[in-house]
């Protein structure tokens, strides 16, 4: 099911786009016009983009691809890119006043791979400032709205990337996920979003938030589109020291409407108990029924350590953020404020005071707090030890099971302003997504159904490099839902 902003034409998949272009070479240009019509009509309300490229530039790029026979696996797909992923010559703000006028002189590896595979960057999408947030209300520019209900948030921090795809203002998009920032907005907007295994996709050109947790990943309207983009962006990159040296599989071959093996999946009770909305649980249970009909064995297990994953995640993420964001000083690049004092430190502090928003400052201060002398052992070191134990528990779990399932979010998309006023309420939206980043595992959010006219996402996660099987299980849910 698609939101009202989409037409049958604007919502086509990459595969259909490729097929139609083979029959009619003008099809691609008509498609671009259709997408820009949707943008013209709805973007003023939705505000998915921070920077949108003019249609003439996009058409020029497509003409070039067609002329040189380089439509490749993406077939001229229009790719929206989260605004913390560097794009050569296109402003990359991170949703922050600090980088309001920053134009990178290079492309992130994921972006150059998109361009080399027949994708065209259509624009840069709105996000919570420096990816710190779960609603896209923390953007320094404006909030992005949920296409299913303009009074609700689209999730975050990759909210713009999710809305651009959900509202058919792009074919697919790239997001980044530090603690759920791809999966949560995918769930709230009714699309598919995948967070790859840590190291599968290069982080070169991604503005760092929590370096040991960050990953770039694809978002699309169907499982197949996500697999196609993952094929393109994954693989070793010598420019990222934490890039895995693995042979990348063809993920498309996993997107089939039958189980590729007799799956054993597990539901962790802690992920379906505390604070889960009844309406979300109803959809989750119906998804388990869909899988049971496809001979998937579902079992329930406990993992009490999950109760500690939220504080563990936020301690580590904020500590890493306080270090990563130290580079934004107004001296090397970014916004610079004139200081009244005579010391460089006054200019530095003033720049950071005016350039960063409240949530970013809060996280930098807390990151500094947990790393302070006398507190480091009790907070940061302890969190790193809990992370070790969580990692060990997941390793043990996935010796027995192929994958695990949970609702992506415990609630339906909150109303605008509802979650942002209380930091604990805001952070709790990530309760089911953060353990996956702590353990470096792959995870996908796929639409499971609708409650009160709002989409509900199902999260599937598994052992490292199990993206193929996760895509297969996601496809079973996708076709079970539409069938």
């Amino acid at each position, binding site marked *: 099911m698609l939101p009202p902003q989409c037409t049958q034409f604007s919502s086509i998949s990459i595969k259909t786009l490729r097929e139609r272009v083979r029959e009619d070479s003008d099809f691609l240009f008509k498609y671009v016009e259709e997408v820009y019509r949707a943008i013209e009509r709805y973007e003023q309300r939705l505000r998915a983009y921070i920077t949108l490229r003019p249609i003439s530039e996009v058409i020029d790029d497509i003409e070039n691809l067609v002329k040189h026979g380089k439509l490749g696996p993406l077939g001229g797909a229009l790719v929206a890119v989260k605004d913390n992923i560097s794009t050569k010559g296109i402003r990359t703000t991170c949703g922050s006043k600090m980088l309001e006028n920053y134009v990178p002189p290079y492309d992130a590896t994921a972006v150059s791979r998109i361009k080399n595979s027949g994708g065209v960057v259509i624009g840069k999408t709105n996000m919570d400032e420096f990816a710190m947030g779960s609603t896209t209300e923390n953007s320094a520019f404006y909030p992005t709205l949920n296409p299913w209900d303009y009074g609700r948030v689209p999730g975050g921090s990759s909210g713009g990337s999710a809305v651009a795809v959900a509202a058919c203002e792009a074919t697919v998009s790239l997001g980044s996920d530090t603690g759920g920032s791809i999966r949560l907005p995918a769930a709230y907007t009714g699309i598919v979003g995948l967070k790859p295994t840590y190291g599968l996709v290069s982080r070169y050109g991604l503005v760092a938030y929590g370096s040991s947790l960050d990953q770039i990943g694809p978002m699309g309207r169907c499982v197949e589109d996500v697999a196609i983009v993952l094929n393109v962006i994954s693989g070793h990159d010598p420019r990222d020291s934490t890039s895995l040296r693995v042979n990348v599989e063809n993920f498309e071959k996993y997107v089939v409407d039958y189980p590729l093996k007799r799956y054993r999946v597990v539901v962790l009770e802690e992920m379906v108990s505390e604070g889960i909305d009844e309406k979300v649980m109803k959809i989750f249970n119906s998804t388990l029924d869909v899988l049971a009909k496809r001979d998937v064995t579902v079992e329930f297990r406990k993992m009490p350590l999950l109760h*500690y994953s939220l504080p563990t995640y936020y301690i580590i993420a904020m500590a890493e953020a306080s270090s990563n964001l130290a580079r934004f000083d107004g001296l090397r690049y970014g916004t610079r404020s004139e200081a009244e004092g005579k010391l460089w430190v006054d200019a530095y502090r003033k720049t950071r005071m005016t350039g960063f928003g409240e949530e970013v400052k809060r996280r930098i*201060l807390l990151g500094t707090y947990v790393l302070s002398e006398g507190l480091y052992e009790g907070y940061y070191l302890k969190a790193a030890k809990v992370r070790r134990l969580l990692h060990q528990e997941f390793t043990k779990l996935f010796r027995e099971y192929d994958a695990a399932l949970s609702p992506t979010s415990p609630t339906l998309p909150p109303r605008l302003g509802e979650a942002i006023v209380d930091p604990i309420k805001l952070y709790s939206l990530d309760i089911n997504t953060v353990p996956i980043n702590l353990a470096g595992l792959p995870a996908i959010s796929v639409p499971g159904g609708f409650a009160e006219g709002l989409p509900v996402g199902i999260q599937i996660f598994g052992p490292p490099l199990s993206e193929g099987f996760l895509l297969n299980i996601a496809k079973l849910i996708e076709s079970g839902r539409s069938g």
Partner: protein
Amino acid sequence: MWLSRVDWEKIIKHLSILALVEADTARIESLARDLEKIVEMFNKIVELNIPEIVEPLYTTFFGEINLEEDVEWESMGIRELDPTGERLEDGYVKSPKTL
């Protein structure tokens, strides 16, 4: 350790100096309230009893770290750095005055 609101306000002032992030004085009270709540959430793990032997985990990357040899590259041309030439003066890029 329990800290009062006044303690938190003092801590925020100290952290602002360390992190070089000046907190908005008008919002310091609400910031103190938020930080107090968040640290209360953090304290959940402080109470957790973990054996000394457990090693901390800082990264989930278990591949071979790819540290490339240093390679000399041709430097980025001034025109690439400033394509419009707006910030050029005598062939150099002029940076804005700070102090």
